[in-house]
């Protein structure tokens, strides 16, 4: 059986999220009660939503999160370890086997920033990775960076730098803050990165 007028998967996601207006929702529901291919596609969207939820619960994504996200996580009984170094400062940090999420609260004046990047650097300050154009709330005064807890649990004792940089209209880069994380491994395992070949 095929569908002559298939509903876009993103619209089905809106439907699943109850994000459609009344008439649009009714049209989708009428179609779904008459169309198995679109019903199957809705099933795929539901599976995708459940998969994303499951991955999010694992704390293994590197991403920018919000305070309300962390509140929901804590309400679900998951354990959040958070460090909040000041701009230009550092913090001693670790993770334990019981931790589910690892968060860095990076304080910065974000007002006027059109685009903000988060740079992740080694102990010498050499950039190892960059998260371009991260979502920020200018009034928040901080950025919540979630480090992969899976990665952090496997990481030996080491130092990592994070930098928030803003771009002006002309594309000029401006340092908003630099943060040093002195990680001490507290789980059994390697005490240091293997020497470079």
């Amino acid at each position, binding site marked *: 059986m095929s569908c002559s007028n298939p509903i*876009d*998967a*993103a619209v089905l*996601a*809106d*439907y*699943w*999220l*109850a*994000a459609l207006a009344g008439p649009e929702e*009714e049209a989708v*529901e*009428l179609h*779904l*009660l*008459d169309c*198995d291919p679109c*019903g*199957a596609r*809705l*099933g*795929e*969207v*539901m*599976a*995708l*939503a*459940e*998969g*994303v*939820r*499951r*991955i*999010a*619960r694992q704390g*293994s*994504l*590197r*991403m*920018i*999160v*919000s305070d*309300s*996200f962390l509140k*929901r996580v804590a309400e679900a009984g998951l354990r959040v370890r958070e460090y909040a170094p000041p701009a230009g400062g550092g913090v001693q940090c670790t993770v334990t086997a019981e931790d589910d999420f690892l968060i860095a609260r990076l304080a910065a004046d974000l007002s006027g920033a059109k685009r903000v990047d988060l740079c992740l650097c080694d102990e010498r300050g050499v950039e190892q990775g960059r*998260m*371009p*154009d*991260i*979502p*920020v*709330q*200018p009034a928040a005064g901080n950025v919540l960076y979630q480090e992969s807890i899976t990665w952090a649990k496997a990481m030996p004792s080491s130092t990592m730098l994070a930098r928030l940089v803003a771009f002006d209209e002309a594309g000029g880069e401006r340092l908003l803050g630099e943060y040093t994380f002195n990680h001490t491994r507290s789980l059994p395992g390697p005490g240091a990165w293997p020497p470079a070949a």
Partner: protein
Amino acid sequence: MDIELNDAELVRQIGSGNDREAEAELFRRMAPRVRLYGLRHLRDEQAAQDLTQQVLITTLEALRAGRLREPAKLASFVLGACRMTVLDLRRNAQRKERLLEQFGADLLPPVPWSLPHLDHEQLTRCVQNLKERERSVVVMTFYDEQTSADVSRLLGVSDANVRVIRHRAIHQLRECMGVAA
């Protein structure tokens, strides 16, 4: 029985007499669709199953009695029954037992259904490969089903922008997972 009957033909066949095969075909055809409606509105597997049974009983009652005057509008009738039953389910849990006794559980077996399988390692890679805003929107949206307005406040972008970002991300995730958009 020809299982290729369209909905209108099926409605007429059920209305013309006690045709258990036609009724079973109606159940086979409509139950998965009603179940999706139930999952969407009730967010609970068992409640969706209850809804499915009650909606199909209501539909069969109406079809047997010839109350559906426009057979081609079966989907509209079922949608109305779904809406009424969601309200009813919240009010009256005991009606189910009475109707099940009247119609028999053999006609209304549980609908075997499960979400399609996903490769979670692949999905993790796909989510991690999204752009930063797309990843945050998708995760925050699906983690606890926040509305566009909630996410827009959190991320400092408009509601409409959140919807655009979410749509783009869903298409990218589906493409990355190897399914058509």
